[in-house]
């Protein structure tokens, strides 16, 4: 593999000596041209990490290396990063062109080149016609694009986005998501993207760093973190999940080339099932993760082999989705059903659940999560 664009080594930030660190010995490598999402709940250290990379905050320990050069103590204005703030932070006393030209002006680019590059940047975000506008005359989405153009026009070493979509309404957020991703791929700008929205992260990122309590719980591609969560926290934070405490029995065979095996597992009150997980889990207790939409729900017995019988406890209909909660013994399982024009299931109806062994994933960590969120 080639040298990473950005390496973060043991990066730590402690706001006060008597507090837990906001970012705790964080390690991460980002490949050139990748968009990496720092995903986690508020207070997980994702924004702190971004601000340290930007140079807006001094780390307590550790180092940040970009293009093989250590920049841990380089002042913010010498780092050449392009940052988009949550509030966009457009200069209110400058018009759109002046805002976008600011970074070029600081780099003492000639007036003629400034003009050409500003025009190109504005065209890139499809706002070439708004150059002379005052920033306060722009809508939220337009301000967002100007902020992006301002950050990209300097051809930054890294593009840093701090929750850039959280101030937009839901519809616009999805449009901008696609657009930012398209622009990022066109410019091949290596990007760090802070978000608390799992959909955003899954949709846009090449890699997702799921953060919790100042630690990275998992760093991987969207499919990896969704399909193969390493911890309870990751499985719970990304998408919805049913968790079942399982005793892992014998390996029943090799599942795939990735070194995973099939197991026989036993869940109290439900019985024995097939499951999939990394090798060497036999004989201990692990949590079983099943995504709601991977559960087959039938209102009639016999549709699947050896289904589990239960009763429907809750029905939630949202037009394109139908979610149900099914009680089996002392377990409540969440499942997704296809919506159809037929009758909706009612609370108290009998329901029969089944799932494929490949969809029941054993968390590699011990049954209890290593570190509980505070």
């Amino acid at each position, binding site marked *: 593999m080639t040298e990473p664009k950005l390496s973060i080594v043991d990066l730590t930030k402690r706001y006060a000596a008597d507090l837990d660190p906001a970012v705790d010995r964080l390690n991460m490598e980002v490949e050139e041209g990748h968009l990496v999402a720092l995903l986690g709940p508020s207070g997980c250290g994702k924004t702190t990490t971004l601000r340290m990379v*930007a*140079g*807006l905050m001094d780390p307590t320990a550790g180092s940040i290396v970009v293009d093989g050069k250590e920049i841990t103590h380089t*002042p*913010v*204005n*010498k*780092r*050449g*990063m*392009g*940052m988009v*703030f949550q*509030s966009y*932070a457009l*200069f*209110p*006393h400058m018009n759109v062109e002046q805002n976008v030209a*600011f*970074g070029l002006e*600081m*780099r003492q680019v000639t007036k003629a080149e400034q003009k050409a590059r500003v025009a190109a940047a504005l065209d890139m975000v499809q706002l070439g016609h708004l150059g002379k506008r*005052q920033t306060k005359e722009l809508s939220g989405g337009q301000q967002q694009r100007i902020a992006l153009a*301002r*950050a990209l026009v*300097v051809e930054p070493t890294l593009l*840093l986005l701090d929750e850039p979509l959280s101030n937009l309404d839901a519809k616009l957020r999805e449009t901008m998501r696609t657009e930012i991703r398209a622009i990022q791929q066109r410019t091949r700008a290596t990007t760090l993207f802070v978000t608390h929205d799992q959909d955003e992260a899954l949709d846009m990122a090449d890699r997702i760093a799921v953060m919790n309590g100042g630690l990275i719980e998992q760093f991987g591609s969207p499919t990896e973190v969704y399909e193969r969560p390493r911890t309870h926290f990751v499985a719970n934070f990304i998408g919805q999940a049913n968790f079942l405490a399982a005793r892992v029995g014998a390996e029943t065979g090799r599942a795939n080339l990735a070194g995973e095996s099939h197991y026989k597992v036993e869940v109290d009150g439900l019985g024995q099932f097939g499951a999939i997980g990394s090798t060497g889990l036999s004989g201990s207790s692990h949590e079983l993760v099943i995504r709601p939409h991977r559960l087959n729900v039938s209102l009639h017995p016999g549709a699947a082999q050896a289904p589990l019988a239960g009763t429907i406890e809750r029905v939630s209909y949202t037009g394109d989705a139908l979610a149900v909660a099914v009680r089996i013994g002392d377990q409540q399982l969440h499942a997704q059903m296809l919506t159809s024009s037929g009758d909706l299931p009612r609370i108290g109806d009998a329901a029969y659940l089944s799932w494929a062994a490949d969809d029941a994933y054993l968390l590699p960590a011990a049954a209890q999560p290593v570190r509980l969120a505070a």
Partner: protein
Amino acid sequence: MTVLEAPAAPERPSAQDEGQLERATERRNRRTYLALLLPGLLGLLVSFVFPLAYMVRMSFNQGAPDGVIVETFTLDTYIQPLTDPYYWRVTLDTFQMGVTVGILCVIVSYPVALFLARSTSKWRGLLVAIAIAPLLTSAVVRTYGWMVILGTNGLINSSLGGLGLIDTPLKLTNNMTGVTIGLVEIFMPYAILAMISGFGRLSPQLEEAAGSLGASKFKVFTRVTLPLCLPGLLTAFLLVFVLSISTFITPRLLGGGSVQVLATEIYDQTTGLLNWPFAAALSVILLVLFGLIIAVYQRLTKKIGG
């Protein structure tokens, strides 16, 4: 022809009904607003508009010796100050003092105000209170304080003399220098308050954005911080200017009679010479001066988008 059954419309008021309801509420609200404004408006009428009108009327009367006021309608009270070079001098001095005090006061208050506006410390409230605490002491007391400090045998002169830095005491009182120093300090709390409320557009994020785009600390200040502070600085300047040219105590006490500005002149005419019509005319002139400055201020704020 078949008629399809239309889906039952949900029960809600039609758009027209809703609009009428809105208009009715609006009208009722407007009446409430007026009722609430009334006491304040009446107060202003009695305590401000009426005296002002009385003063303007007074300025067209004729002042006779011994404080006798001849009810008439003459422009003599205006012709005298506008033709006499002495009053031109006084007006010009007043204006100059206002500008100097305004500028100096803004310069010394700016760092304090900027610090307070940016502070996120839990002590911020206390610090703001301390910054404006001098307002708890009357300007008279503070002026006397300055007389003690600036006087011929005052703190500054005796210190400098004691250190052998000067042979003759600096002349810091009974002149415009003393008045200016005193006024700058006395009006600092007002300037600081005006600035803090005028720095609304300033945000740490804008400065961070400028830094991330390659601006040095100095450039961040000159290109972002200062321009965003301008509306606040201008408001503070205007406030201090207006306060300076209308103040009477400090020029009288620290000026020791040798500093004549419109305010002291008006005081002398009112209480010494008992020439109320003339004092009223001078007051009107001062008022016009205010008006001019406020007009300039409004044009400027529009220009810098405050």
